[in-house]
């Protein structure tokens, strides 16, 4: 059964690759690396998720204990022989202005690991909702500096259009505030963003379970980014696999074309005149 699944997954993903900034991706799940119980569980979850893109934050090194939180060294423990190396997507969390985000982005790139950057700018500690004006400003600045820019943004079709025009490599509208698990609060907006975007749409933030990931994909998103719902699940590796499958199921469902919703029943068997009476 597991082998059959893997074979199906492999063939389905092979014919459904997508691109960001000229890089071809086969998985449509981005995984965050925050708040896992420990590095071992995190590695199990990364493996189960099938992800190719991992997100990180940039912080000061604790110089009293320089190895603490050195997350990258734990990744070496993941056995992925024969598979493509991970793409690192650092974020600018902690920034509340465009200037602060640019500063963090430059530091992230100077690490030598990636020139991808997820812009995350928030000044409201209660909702962590992204600041649209500063996010647009930072997108313009970082595109000029040659970054592959993925802005985390509100689920606003107009804003996402402006971000695309500013040169974003993808747009990342939030489903609901970070870490809430409230799912996709405005599916209408996500659908409009998908319809209008010529760059990939990655639904980021607020997803709570596999059902939400499938919903995002059924709305036509190119990918989803999850962190908290996997890291804080009772069984993170189990939830990572569930997300992996949900993203694939949602994608296949979207491509296969769902039926139109109707108010009243339609019998599934037909053959009205042959009913046994």
């Amino acid at each position, binding site marked *: 059964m597991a082998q059959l699944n893997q074979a199906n997954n492999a063939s389905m993903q092979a014919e459904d690759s997508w691109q960001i900034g000229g890089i071809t991706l086969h998985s449509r799940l981005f995984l965050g690396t*925050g708040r896992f119980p420990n590095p071992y569980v995190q590695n199990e979850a990364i493996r189960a998720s099938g992800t190719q893109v991992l*997100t990180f934050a*940039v912080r000061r090194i604790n110089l009293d204990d320089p190895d603490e939180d050195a997350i990258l060294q734990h990744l070496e423990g993941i056995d992925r022989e024969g598979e493509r190396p991970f793409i690192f997507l650092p974020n600018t969390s902690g920034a509340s202005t465009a200037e602060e985000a640019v500063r963090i982005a430059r*530091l992230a790139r100077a*690490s030598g690991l990636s020139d991808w950057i997820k812009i995350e700018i928030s000044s409201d500690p209660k909702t962590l909702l992204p600041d649209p004006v500063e996010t647009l400003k930072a997108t313009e600045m970082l595109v000029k500096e040659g970054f592959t820019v993925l802005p985390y943004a509100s689920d606003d079709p107009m804003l996402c259009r402006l971000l695309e025009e500013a040169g974003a490599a993808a747009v990342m509208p939030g489903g609901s505030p*970070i870490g809430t698990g409230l799912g996709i609060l405005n599916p209408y907006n996500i659908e409009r963003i998908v319809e209008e975007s010529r760059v990939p749409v990655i639904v980021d933030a607020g997803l709570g379970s596999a059902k939400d990931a499938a919903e995002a994909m059924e709305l036509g998103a190119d990918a989803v980014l999850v*962190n908290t719902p996997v890291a804080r699940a009772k069984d993170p590796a189990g939830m990572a696999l569930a997300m992996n499958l949900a993203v694939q199921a949602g994608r296949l469902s979207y491509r296969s074309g769902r039926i139109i919703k109707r108010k009243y029943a339609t019998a599934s068997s037909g053959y009205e005149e042959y009913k046994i009476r």
Partner: protein
Amino acid sequence: MTEIVLNGKKTTTDAKTVFELIQAYGLEGKPIAVEIGGEVVNREEWKEKQIQSGMTIELVHFVGGG
């Protein structure tokens, strides 16, 4: 001894260059980034860049995040 502000804390160091400072904390070869006075110091410049009294220096790395 040179007085600097390192990751927000006043401290003194014997390091003459950025590279020596990084060595002092056992961070050579690690995927870290360095900023002095708000400007990134690229890896290739670490050995030449002199540490001077009063500099504000940040040593950063990747941590878990979403």
